């Protein structure tokens, strides 16, 4: 492995940037942002250098001992293989674009330096997840990603909704992390190691080692992914997370962090047995469906994209569950491109609209914001899976995988969700960019500056071409024993090898598009609620998950807290300690009643004392 130290640099540069910004340059917006951008862009360049030197098809580790206590050996180690290389590229590449974009987007915010510090912190954490070579390292960065997400969602902390959303995201993630660490402990307890490669070797040598706990351990580990990748039932935080600045949504809640769950599943796939994978795939599928349905009735431009992210993540998880890490990672990568693109374009729209996010206040923006319109269109097409955009290829790979695994139900779900995706994306598309301006802001919208549009264009290029530039090739034999690299032409025509899934996918797109066009072209208000009635209300209210959790999980904890507090306050503090105190005090007051001051009483008590003394010693 050449340039062995390079990954360390890539990892720690953003951390350095955090340190420098918080310690020295907090006062200067420009310097801070340049440092942060510099760190991630340098990281990207270094990643390219490293890949250039080593290629994709290798596997190596570099590590230093971090903690060593008896049987607990934890390395701070980096695992370098195709999987992490690809993710490294995505994180630094897409991340870099978003960093640059943020420079324009956040330009008027007085806390921009803080923003970039957080952003760098996030990049550091995300790189850590990607590079981690053992479970605990991954958990550490897992948590750090969670907290940087918390910080970024709550960036505009004065907005109560932002604060609430941050809190919700954090706690929900924590629920997932609970399962994750639980699972890690279980695996460690059974296998005695935390390192991925060691675990893989051990398990390969003796698959029965996990024993009866295998399914449980798998599902617990999956809990981590459930939290980070916002899978049902822990999906509720992601839409709320849109309270953060739009670049954050793009970076964290579309391209990278939410993908961490999928990445982690791929990284630790060897641990999962078929039962747990089965369940995982159904959870993924259900999430995809649920989120798509919810997206249909949202009116906030970012929330729609957020639900779409949820839905796409569901796809990926489903695919992993269907034992298809390669298609999952493929979709993850393309999704990173086009979803970041969509978010950033939406951000551009939002800036153009002076921070108006309600799509029913927009309209006809294609004229005012041509570049944004163009990039948004590319993103939309990619998301929907229109050939030859990247999404088409990755989605097709997923559907093919589902079919190959003979999971017809999930295949059906996939197709249906594809249709839904097209429907709600184009709903958004038509309402925002076509029709009439629905508000004053819309008529005064303007195109964003170059520093924002340039990253858009770059992402647009990848969103378009991501499907056939060899992403799957790069995974090589990471997950399968034999893999032949395909030429670009082969990649281009790959879907035609399995016509049925492709046809289904395309059909779904057509149906969705048709419905969206017929309903929303030139629409001034949403016609769907009247048509669907109660279902639309359900969708709009996200199937009342928030309310449900509020009523169960939160209430239960608050109730228990109230009970504990009551016990503490009234029983422990009040009754028991109070009784002891009061009893002592009272007995003091009672006893001294003997001190009447009357000599006769004293003499009597004296004699009584003598009598008692004599009686007890001699009276027997």
């Amino acid at each position, binding site marked *: 492995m050449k340039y062995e130290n390079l990954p360390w640099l890539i990892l720690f540069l953003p951390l350095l940037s955090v340190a420098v910004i918080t310690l020295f340059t907090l006062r200067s917006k420009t310097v801070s942002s340049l440092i942060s951008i510099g760190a991630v862009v340098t990281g990207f360049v270094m990643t390219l250098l490293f890949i250039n030197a080593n290629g994709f098809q290798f596997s190596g580790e570099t590590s230093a001992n971090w903690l060593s206590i008896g049987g607990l050996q934890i390395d701070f180690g980096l695992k370098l293989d195709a999987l992490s290389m690809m993710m490294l590229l995505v994180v630094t590449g897409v991340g870099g674009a978003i960093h640059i974009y943020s420079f324009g987007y956040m330009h008027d915010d007085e806390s921009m330096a803080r923003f970039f510090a957080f952003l760098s912190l996030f990049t550091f954490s995300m790189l850590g997840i990607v590079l981690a070579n053992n479970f605990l390292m991954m958990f550490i960065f897992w948590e750090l990603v969670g907290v940087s997400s918390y910080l970024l969602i709550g960036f505009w902390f004065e907005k109560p909704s932002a604060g609430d959303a941050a809190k919700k995201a954090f706690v929900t993630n924590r629920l997932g992390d609970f399962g994750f660490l639980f699972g890690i402990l279980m695996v460690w307890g059974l296998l005695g190691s935390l390192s991925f490669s060691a675990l893989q070797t051990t398990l390969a040598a003796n698959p029965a080692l996990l024993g009866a706990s295998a399914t449980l351990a798998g599902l617990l580990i999956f809990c981590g992914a459930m939290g980070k990748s916002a899978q049902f039932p822990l999906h509720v935080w992601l839409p709320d997370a849109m309270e953060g600045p739009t670049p954050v949504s793009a970076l964290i809640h579309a391209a990278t962090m939410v993908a961490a769950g999928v990445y982690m599943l791929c990284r630790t796939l060897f641990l999962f047995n078929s039962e747990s994978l089965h369940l995982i795939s159904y959870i993924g599928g259900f999430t995809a469906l649920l989120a798509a349905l919810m997206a249909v009735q949202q009116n906030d431009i970012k929330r729609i994209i957020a639900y779409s992210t949820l839905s796409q993540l569901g796809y990926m998880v489903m695919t992993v569950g269907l034992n298809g890490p390669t298609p999952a990672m493929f979709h993850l990568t393309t999704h990173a491109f086009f979803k970041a693109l969509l978010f950033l374009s939406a951000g551009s729209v939002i800036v153009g609209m002076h921070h108006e996010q309600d799509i029913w206040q927009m309209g006809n923006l294609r004229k005012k914001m041509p570049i944004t319109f163009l990039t948004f269109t590319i993103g939309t097409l990619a998301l929907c899976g229109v050939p030859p955009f990247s999404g088409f290829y990755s989605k097709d790979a997923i559907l093919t995988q589902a079919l190959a695994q003979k999971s017809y139900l999930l295949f059906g779900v996939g197709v249906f969700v594809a249709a839904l995706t097209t429907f709600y994306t184009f709903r958004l598309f038509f309402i925002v960019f076509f029709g009439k301006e629905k508000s004053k802001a819309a008529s005064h919208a303007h195109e964003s500056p170059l520093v924002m549009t340039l990253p858009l264009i770059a992402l647009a290029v990848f969103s378009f071409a991501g499907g056939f530039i060899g992403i799957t090739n790069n995974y090589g034999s990471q997950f399968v024993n034999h893999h032949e690299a395909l030429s670009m032409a082969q990649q281009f025509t790959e879907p035609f090898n399995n016509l049925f899934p492709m046809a289904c996918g395309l059909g779904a797109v057509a149906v969705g598009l048709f419905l969206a066009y017929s309903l929303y072209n030139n629409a001034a208000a949403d016609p769907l609620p009247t048509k669907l009635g109660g279902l639309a209300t359900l969708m709009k209210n996200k199937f009342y998950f928030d309310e449900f959790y509020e009523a169960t999980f939160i209430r239960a904890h608050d109730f228990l807290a109230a009970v504990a507090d009551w016990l503490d306050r009234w029983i422990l503090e009040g009754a028991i300690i109070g009784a002891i105190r009061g009893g002592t005090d009272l007995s003091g007051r009672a006893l*001294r*009643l003997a*001190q009447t*001051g*009357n*000599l006769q009483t004293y*003499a009597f008590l004296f*004699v009584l004392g003598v009598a008692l003394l004599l009686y007890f010693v001699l009276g027997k």
Partner: protein
Amino acid sequence: MHVSLHHYLFVSFMLFSLGLLGVIMRRNLLVIYMSLELMLNAANLALVSFSRFNNKLDGQVLVFFIITVAAAEVAVGLALIVALFRKRQSAHVEDLTSMKL
């Protein structure tokens, strides 16, 4: 029955108990004080009878000391009671309760 040590001791004990009774039942300081003298006398009686029956003289020496001490005690005590009476115009124990609890 021949009079023996037991008889004397019995008298002494009864005398002591009577003194004790007086101390706790009477309210006049002087009478209480007299009762205390009874108790001391009971001790004297016991000592003298032991002396006789043990054939040792030390008891009588002790009695001598006790009588002297009792006299001294009485002197001081009575002076004290007089002083108190001058202040309080009372020699009753119920009136001596300025300090309590």
